[in-house]
């Protein structure tokens, strides 16, 4: 897994960061690829919550299906995890918010409180909430300037996938006749766009206080030279090998979304899914840690 560094700072200005175990020396010549995504979710009954989540991924070793296959050099590097998330709460206090200064993959999500459905002819569903997602990429997020940040086919597909993923996870029966919006924006793209969005949006929805069945953690996986690789970067995705994206509900082990658009022998599918699941569980551990730390901090502050 790429490094995911996480820290959360509330409007009170206390940056909270947690880092996973320090990694073994990274293979030389590998550039560290921080992965940042920001997620903001305003809570339904709490003031809007905004979480900026940046995760730092460094390309260390990919946990393979059976073997550890370090990228490029012969060292086995355990996955380093740290997810960076920053929360800002209103009413704001003059605090500084730390932002990952090096974000290879960065996205930001925001979820306003559930509200009355707005236009678009969709109307309200009588027994559950409508989940509305919007995905957009900043024009400077990719190597080539992106001409159409939203509305093109890839964005629409991504929007739909996000919507379907979260419809599976959010307990929509608790909000009949309302609409839950999830807005996600990619600031820097380095592979695994969908996965970054899902992880960011999960934190955002939790921050908003919208109940979910479980965390939704996502990771991509690929298959190169008989080894399954987890969490592909842009270069690896572009190389043309088979790749899959997996969104998992970690506690129950249920798959919310699995997408694979390339040719892969069915014997290898197991390995790929295993690699992705492993990465998802690792992400889950970090997300859980961040959320618990944040709750601890909030209860400590409120308790005073």
């Amino acid at each position: 897994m790429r490094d995911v560094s996480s820290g959360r700072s509330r409007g009170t200005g206390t940056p909270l960061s947690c880092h996973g175990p320090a990694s073994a020396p990274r293979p030389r010549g590998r550039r560290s690829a921080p992965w940042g995504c920001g997620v903001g979710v305003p809570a339904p009954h709490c003031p809007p919550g905004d979480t900026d989540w940046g995760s730092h991924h460094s390309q260390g070793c990919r946990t393979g299906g059976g073997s550890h296959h370090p990228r490029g050099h012969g060292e086995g590097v355990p996955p380093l995890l740290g997810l960076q998330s920053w929360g800002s709460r209103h009413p704001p206090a003059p605090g500084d918010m730390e932002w990952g200064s090096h974000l290879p993959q960065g996205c930001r999500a925001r979820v306003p409180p559930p509200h009355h459905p707005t236009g678009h002819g969709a109307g309200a569903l009588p027994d559950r909430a409508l989940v509305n997602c919007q995905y957009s990429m900043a024009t400077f997020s990719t190597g080539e300037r992106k001409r159409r940040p939203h509305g093109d086919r890839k964005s629409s597909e991504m929007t739909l996938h996000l919507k379907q993923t979260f419809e599976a996870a959010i307990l929509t029966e608790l909000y009949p006749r309302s609409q839950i919006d999830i807005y996600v924006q990619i600031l820097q793209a380095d592979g695994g766009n969908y996965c970054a969005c899902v992880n960011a949006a999960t934190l955002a929805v939790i921050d908003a206080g919208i109940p979910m069945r479980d965390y939704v953690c996502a990771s991509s996986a690929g298959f190169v030279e008989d080894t399954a690789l987890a969490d592909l970067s842009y270069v690896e995705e572009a190389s043309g090998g088979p790749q899959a994206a997996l969104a998992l509900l970690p506690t129950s082990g249920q798959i919310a979304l699995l997408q694979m658009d390339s040719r892969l022998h069915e014997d290898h599918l197991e390995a790929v899914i295993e690699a992705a699941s492993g990465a998802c569980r690792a992400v889950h551990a970090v997300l859980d840690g961040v959320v618990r730390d944040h709750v601890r901090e909030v209860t400590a502050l409120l308790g005073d």
Partner: protein
Amino acid sequence: MAPGGCRRIGEPAASLLVLGPWVLPAARNGVSRVIGKCGVATDRGTVEPLEYYRRFLKENCRPDGRELGEFRATTVNIGSITTADGSALVKLGNTTVICGVKAELAAPAVDSANKGYIVPNVELPSLCSTRFRSGPPGEEAQAASQFIADVIENSQIIAKEDLCIANGKLAWVLYCDIICLDYDGNILDASAFALLAALKNVQLPSVTINEETGLSEVNLKQKNPLVIRKHPVATSFAIFDDTLLVVDPTAEEEDLATGTVTIVTDEEDRLCSVHKPGGSPLTGAKLQDCITRAITRHKEVKKLIDKVIKSIKPN
């Protein structure tokens, strides 16, 4: 691409510098006095927001504890987006704005064959605030984009001739995309600041035109920073009840205000732009006060930017 001001999380972020608020004891007393007068402030600004706010203004302070002439904590982070040729993230209190600059090559216009282009765009997505609906850019975003375009034009922040590579054949186009990530008022100041910081961070590869083939050759290894001629800094004020001026309004203050003024100055204490879109009338003397405050603010911002740029270790 050179990551510029990179900092591992956990390391002290020198590229991240804060102009902290210095809340003078007077302001603090003011706030507590207001709260004290009405016992516990029973109306926390929801029932009668304007009345609630006026109570603070009478004591020369604001609900968040600031003085009338005080800015929120300003944070700037340069070079965080490596896919962009230059980037900057600016936070004014809660207002968060990120600017990414991407450079492309294009043929210059026929009538100005020796000039490149700078194309700014301010985006206020639904992400930043519930007041913005998704869809085509709204009025505020378009007005902000036009304001930034005017600032670039009037202040001569970059000489467009510097962007020209070969007269009549090839020039740089700088697409400056400013995205608001969190809207809490004073978007113009933050956008202008982000733009300035991002342009200072831009590194353009050197381009030569091959004589034989006539094609351009881009040398990514050799990069040159942009020549920033002037450093315009915007300062916004909100007008209350036709008389009181508060600097750096938050979103709530902007909603309650009867007018706004934005002043853009450069480092030679010259005015680049005075933007007062309607709203309550202002006397000349008050406008002069605004200009004086804007000049002070310029010095603060310039110091901050210089500090951040210096802290970026060249890679």
